[in-house]
């Protein structure tokens, strides 16, 4: 059960990168115009992951709580920028969405990590980067997707539902009451990928972390239990983050006098 993992050297890595060429060839053949993005994306992934490898080594060796928290904040910030980059409404919508997105991802992810780290896994010391960084990475990745989906859907539902929202406001409804339906739909939209993932985990998909643990020589039963902790934790993080987005972002569509603001020119 403890056969060592196969070593991947630079040669193996170069061979693996040929797989990206398949996608690039497909893009050229179908004229998808994705070639440049794929090349840039692959190079970015290579650089980012290589660098993060060294950062992790350094972080594990120094083992300081403030460095760990600093990295967690940086991860949250990066996730925020990614989640808001392709939102409708573009540059006008982003200044008001970014702080909300950052706060939602931070709160949703930290609460989840705190619970897992303190109660479930019992990480010692509490800032042990070997646990916190990978766990937080998975959490923030999912929270980011939840935030992006919730924000995008809320924006489009608020736009499509303007007539109904104003009809509610005209009857003396609060902005919360008037936007209850867009908020509900945005939350559902953000949760659907997580719910789908819960349904097929282990049947259709073998999650990356579990695969990694098994490849690295862990017992599959242990890997499965870890993975269950992870999927439950991702569910909580997505739900909390989506709730935060929907709660805070929808306020920005209204004035203090319960008026629906004019639509953002796209």
């Amino acid at each position, binding site marked *: 059960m403890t056969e060592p993992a196969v070593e991947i050297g630079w040669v193996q890595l170069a061979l693996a990168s040929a797989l990206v060429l398949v996608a690039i060839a497909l893009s050229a053949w179908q004229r998808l115009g994705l070639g440049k993005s794929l090349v840039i994306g692959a190079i970015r992934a290579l650089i980012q992951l290589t660098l993060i490898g060294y950062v992790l080594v350094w972080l594990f060796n120094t083992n300081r709580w403030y460095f760990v928290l600093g990295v967690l904040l940086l991860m949250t910030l990066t996730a925020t920028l990614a989640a808001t980059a392709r939102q409708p409404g573009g540059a006008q919508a982003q200044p008001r969405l970014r702080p909300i997105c950052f706060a939602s991802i931070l709160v949703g992810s930290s609460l989840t990590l705190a619970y897992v780290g303190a109660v479930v896994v019992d990480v010692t010391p509490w800032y042990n980067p070997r646990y916190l960084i990978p766990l937080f990475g998975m959490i923030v990745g999912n929270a980011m997707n939840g935030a992006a989906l919730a924000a995008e859907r809320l924006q489009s539902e608020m736009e499509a539902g303007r*007539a109904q929202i*104003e*009809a509610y*406001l*005209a*009857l*003396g409804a*609060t902005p919360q009451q008037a936007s209850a*339906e867009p908020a509900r739909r945005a939350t559902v939209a953000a949760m659907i990928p997580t719910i789908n993932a819960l349904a097929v985990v282990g049947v259709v998909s073998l999650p990356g972390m579990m695969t990694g643990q098994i490849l690295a020589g862990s017992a599959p039963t242990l890997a499965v239990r870890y993975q269950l902790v992870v999927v439950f934790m991702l569910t909580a993080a997505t739900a909390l983050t989506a709730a935060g987005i929907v709660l805070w972002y929808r306020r920005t569509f209204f004035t203090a006098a319960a*008026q629906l603001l004019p639509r953002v020119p796209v």
Partner: protein
Amino acid sequence: MNDMQPLTSIVVSPEQQTDASPDEFALENVTQERGGRRVLAGVTIALPKGGFSALIGPSGAGKTSLLRLLNRLDDPASGVVRFLGRPIVDFPVRALRRRVGFVFQTPAMFPGTVAENLSVVPTLGGEARAAHASVHIAEVLRLVELGADFGDRIAADLSGGEKQRVALARALMTGPEVLLLDEPTAALDPEVAAHLMHTLRRLRESTGLTIVMVTHRLSEARSTSTYAVMLEAGRVVEAGPSARLFSAPIEARTREFIAAGEAGKNHD
């Protein structure tokens, strides 16, 4: 509901009205902008209490922009809007909107049945779904001349005219003193529109509501309103009792607009 004012009290020019009987609404040098464009440019006007005021004028005159100020769906860029003599911003906005109902050009139905569209209204004001709500629903359905059996119909499946009556009924659920109507018949065919106008006249007679209506149908404004305001390019061209404004307009522009409307009446 016997506080209805006799028609003669309405046939008074705004200048003659005293503080003792304040106008329903008064606008003082109001400007408004939408999307960086000026849509109201210094509007000063008074709308009589208990009246049926019609806002007329060509498209883009600022009629809807003006109407939206009267229950604070929008606030003006500058100037003062008064409700019953007090600045409108002094009223808590949600309470104000329950006193000043709004019916939109395109009725937006809420999910569910007609009865659900109506019974949700009290809950928006923080009240529990009242036990007497069903009585109230029957009453407002009667006022908008929809049969009591309409309560069980799915709102989204109704015809345009029926939806507009549901929207009207919904606005009446708060027990308003004023109804603002934004081209309520614009999306309806002439016969259905005429029937709705008939209902509105009856409604005003039986409840004493003040009504302010934006319309592009001049015949509607002429036959239904007691007071009329002619707007063009964000300015008031002329305002006065409908009987006078439609038969003997003072401003040449009003005369032109009414004449053009009469000429095009057959196509309406």
